[in-house]
């Protein structure tokens, strides 16, 4: 079923050179009969990290899946770099330059780490693959030790390194990262935070995160959603100052 209000290219707000890389407008997404996203709108700025916040079940993961076309929206528009995404299939969306690091990492457990990366380097030449692998190894020096190990036998932190690296194996302009801290030891979370901060210089990031330390360290902007609706958004520094908002919607107390 196609939504009747698909935009024509003339109405798309973000052109290829605009400051806004990804724009969601009034996105409604259903999972079977459940109305999960009830009109979510967001603007992701090029070259910055935006954090999507909200309680469990607020619709954060569904927002990322709607962008990827894994749970296609029934209503609303999503445009990426001037191109409409609604109505495209997942593989077309990925090919337009969006990397996806899902919740629970989505690693291919039966393959080695290296095979995971090779698979992600879709259509790249061997030289280009090597160059990108080198870049990832600079980012995660430990990864060199388990490249030939079956990914299913890796620890959560190691798998997270492979999952993020996978998003860097092609020329992605935008990375969607879903709860990278989930199930990781605090010291590993800290390492992931450091990596994401470094990564911000190379790629635009849309991060879903419950861990407030990670969210506030990595994020430049934030969007807060609840029950599939936008609550508020703005600069990360404003949110850190707003004790009432963080307590009410995130259940955290900022010291």
């Amino acid at each position, binding site marked *: 079923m196609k939504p009747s209000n698909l935009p024509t290219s003339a109405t798309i707000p973000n052109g290829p050179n605009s400051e806004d890389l990804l724009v969601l407008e009034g996105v409604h997404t259903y999972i079977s009969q459940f109305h999960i996203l009830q009109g979510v709108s967001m603007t992701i700025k090029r070259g910055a990290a935006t954090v999507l916040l909200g309680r469990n079940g607020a619709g954060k993961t569904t927002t990322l899946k709607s962008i*990827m076309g*894994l749970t296609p929206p029934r209503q609303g528009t999503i445009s990426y770099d001037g191109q409409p995404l609604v109505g495209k*299939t*997942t*593989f077309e969306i*990925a*090919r337009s330059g969006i990397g*996806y690091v*899902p919740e629970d990492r*989505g690693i*291919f*457990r*039966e*393959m080695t780490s290296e*095979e995971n990366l*090779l*698979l*992600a380097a*879709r259509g790249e030449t061997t030289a280009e693959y090597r160059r990108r692998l080198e870049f990832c190894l600079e980012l995660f020096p430990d990864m060199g030790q388990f490249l030939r190990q079956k990914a299913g036998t890796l620890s959560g932190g190691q798998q997270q390194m492979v999952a993020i690296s*996978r998003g860097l194996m*092609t020329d992605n302009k935008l990375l969607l990262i879903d709860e990278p801290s989930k199930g990781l030891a605090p010291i590993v979370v800290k390492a992931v935070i450091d990596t994401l901060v470094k990564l911000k210089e190379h790629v635009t990031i849309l991060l879903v995160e419950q861990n407030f330390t990670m969210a506030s360290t990595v994020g430049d902007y934030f969007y807060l959603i609840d029950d599939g609706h936008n609550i508020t958004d703005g600069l990360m520094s404003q949110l850190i100052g707003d004790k009432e908002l963080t307590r009410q919607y995130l259940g955290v107390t900022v010291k």
Partner: protein
Amino acid sequence: MKVAQRPNLYLALRNPRLLTLISVVVGLLLVLLYINTAIKFPVFVKFLINGLVESAVLFLMASGLSLIFGLMDVVNFAHGAVFTWGGIAFMWSFNLFTMPPATGKDSSSPVAWMQMGLEPLPATALALVVGLVTGGLLGAGVEFLAIRRLYGRPVFQILLTLGLVLVLDESLKIVFSLKSQNYDFLATPWPTGNFKPSSEILVNWKSVAIVVAGLLVFGGVYWLLNRTKVGLVIRGGVEDPQMVQALGYNVRVYFFGVFVLGSVLAALGGIAYSINSAGGSDQMGQFSLLTAFVVVVIGGLGSFSGAAVGALLVGIISPYVAYHFPGLADSFVMLLLVLVLLIRPQGLFGGKKY
């Protein structure tokens, strides 16, 4: 501080898959050695050669099934019908290609142009193409029109493919205008003749060709799955199709390709079967399908190498069992299945998805 290193052999032996392989090989050797003492040497070798050819035919059938059923989890009962179609299409076109050009009344037949009076070698080569293309087209049609909508729904797959078996088996008789159940070659396909490695042993060249075909298919598919990017996409697609899509691959196209490849291999199995037994029947696929299912389960679902080991096991032991215990000839395969499943419910090489 120095730590005493365990010998590498010890570590290697702890690998369960290697251990399985070693015990299968040792067990097979022991059985064969025992049988060797019971029958004369030339008979033993003759049975071994027959067993290898049988294994190769079985493997060709089972390899396609291993891809479609083991790897992609599609229960495809129509696989046997594709086997029959491939074999009959091969024999039918071979017969036509070797016939002298039609004259008079016959020349109005729509297939009269195929009567070229070819020698066995070119006729076999052309007929091989006809048989394989028939299998590929059938597979493509079945996937595109039916299976595509039924991935992950085994009950629907069983119902649908069982129905397809009826349709394909009956339409086979119409398309190739079969007059009886059996269908024969009018000339002998290439390779003909035989050679004698010793005075008492005779080996047919066609047996050699079939075994070589089996080895080539094994090597080719193993290479495709384990050493190429296409193989990576297929293995990834089996494990997590959504994630493969999210990496920018159109998984459907790859699954379609695997299904067609599996069907081409089924047709190749039918062709090898017809060459090996110098003829075929409109039921040959149904008989082979059951054994092939058993082979795939013995080898372990999803393990391509397992299917090869299973085919060798069944193919090589069968002739000896049939010789010593004729009453067990038909039930032996099932007994072996029960035995393997009792010891290793996941199959010999199960758990590894390629």
